[in-house]
């Protein structure tokens, strides 16, 4: 197996694990943990896309490194994606705290107002 294949498979497994957790858990904090794992998987996937065999980091140095550089664009996308993921997580957890204040529980099965 080559490095991109390993990375691809594990990124993909991370997304699946995260989504599985999101769909099956009842504890809301665990659902958000699942979301974070899936997010990490997507980030790994994007980095994999820009990977080049034996590539070096896309930074020009005084002593030029031999060989190709990896693609900088997906890395820039991942930076954005990480920050967006953090923003969503912070908002989601604040909502969970608010729900706990009003319902006294973070279990979706015990919150009866809406159908999940």
């Amino acid at each position, binding site marked *: 197996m080559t490095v991109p294949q390993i990375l691809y498979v594990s990124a993909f497994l991370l997304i699946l694990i995260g989504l599985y957790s999101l769909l099956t858990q009842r504890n809301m904090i665990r659902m958000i943990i699942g979301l974070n794992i899936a997010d990490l998987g997507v980030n790994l996937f*994007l980095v994999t896309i820009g990977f080049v065999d034996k590539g070096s980091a896309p930074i020009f140095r005084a002593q030029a490194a031999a060989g190709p550089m990896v693609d900088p664009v997906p890395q820039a996308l991942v930076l954005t994606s990480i920050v967006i993921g953090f923003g*969503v997580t912070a908002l989601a957890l604040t909502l969970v705290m*608010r729900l706990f204040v009003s319902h006294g529980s973070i279990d979706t099965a015990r919150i009866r107002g809406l159908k999940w």
Partner: protein
Amino acid sequence: MVSPILFIVVPLAAAFLTVLVNRNAGARILALLTALTLSALAWFWFRADLSTPVSVVIAGIAPPMGIQLSMDRLSAALALLISVSGLLVILYSQSYLKSEEAQSKHYAVLLLLMAASFGILLTRDLFNLFVFYEILCISSYILVASEETKASFEASLKYLLLGSVGSLFMLVAIGLAYRVSGSLAMSDIARALGKADSSYAMLTAALFVLGMGIEAAIFPVNTWLPDAHSSAPSSISAVLSGFVIELALVVLLRISMTVFSSVNLMLPLRYMALAGILIGELAAFGQTELKRTLAYSSMGQVGLMLFALTLGTEAGRQAGMAHLVMHTGAKSVLFLIAGYFIVRTGKREIKSYSGLGRRMPLTGVLFVIAALSLVGVPPLFGFFTKFKILSAAAASGATGAWLGIAVILLGTVLEASYLFRVARTLYSDPEGENVKAVKGRMEMDVPALVAVFGFTLLVIFGSFLLPLIPSGLAL
């Protein structure tokens, strides 16, 4: 020179400033001024000659390396719709949100929502679209939760979790598209996907449509909609039902017609649309709360627009866009008035509004006009748009067109019956306790009335706008 970039920069700057303005009044005035500026800008672009789209590159770097924005006639028309409804909703919020504390931030989020809407309309870069889409989603989650009731927190969290999964799918799709095309500019991706393996293109398109379809409330992924739209503050329900889902729908359609033109998405989308109409209208028929009824009705109406837009003919697209404009007006009126009904009676069920139409005569009449237009009664705008959709479907000869006509007619009957039920309750004899429960003056506050009146004008005289509505869903 008036650059299209002002559409994004002006609301951003105003939102950044709002944090410093801690007084509610100041924030309101700032938001109103910003919305006025945006409306003027949109009017300028709407009047401008856009037969060839005006493009702007960011940072002086042309695509595919840089990001390009492009203003075409469709974007200009939708920008006008967004900025005017934003203006009216902010005007309405002025009286509706009076009692709430710390609402100045609410205006900032509303402005950011508008900035993000303009962003996803204008950008021609897939990842830039994703960033603006995220801003749109996050500000919608916040606005839904800003009602500060138990139900609104739940609805918001549900919306957030579903929306985040959608964004993950979109990001994977963007990654796949970049892998095959080596670029993020929409035109490059379209070209590369046309040459790529068909299952690869199909996977990319499916992930993207599924992801973005969540915000556009396309049938299988719209379970968040009734909760979110019914438990949000009424002004926000008007915004969300009025232009956010429609905007997402149009942008999604534009992308699936241009970027994913090599994949035949129209047929599955058409059947999804029909399922959405049926389920939305049937569910709306069974509801007892007014705002929930309206939310389910939005679900059906989105299906109607999607059906028209996916017919694949010029007439269908034009009819769909016209119906979109009509729905923005009518649904905003209904939600804004529903908000006042809730304020006055303190109850959400339709049956507790009996006799309210006699106590608030003008409001009641406006409500009935909007409802009639939504059903499609001549000579209101809704009649023309629905008629155009039906005739376009009959003329198109597309697969499922006749089935669609049957479903739309059935949906119309259902819609007429539940909206008529509401209207009858409004003008029925008030029961003793309800009259006492109604507090406040007879009509709505003046700014709110002005806002509702603005939307009603659109509903009544919209048919004169028909020749102005552009149809080209071009890149």
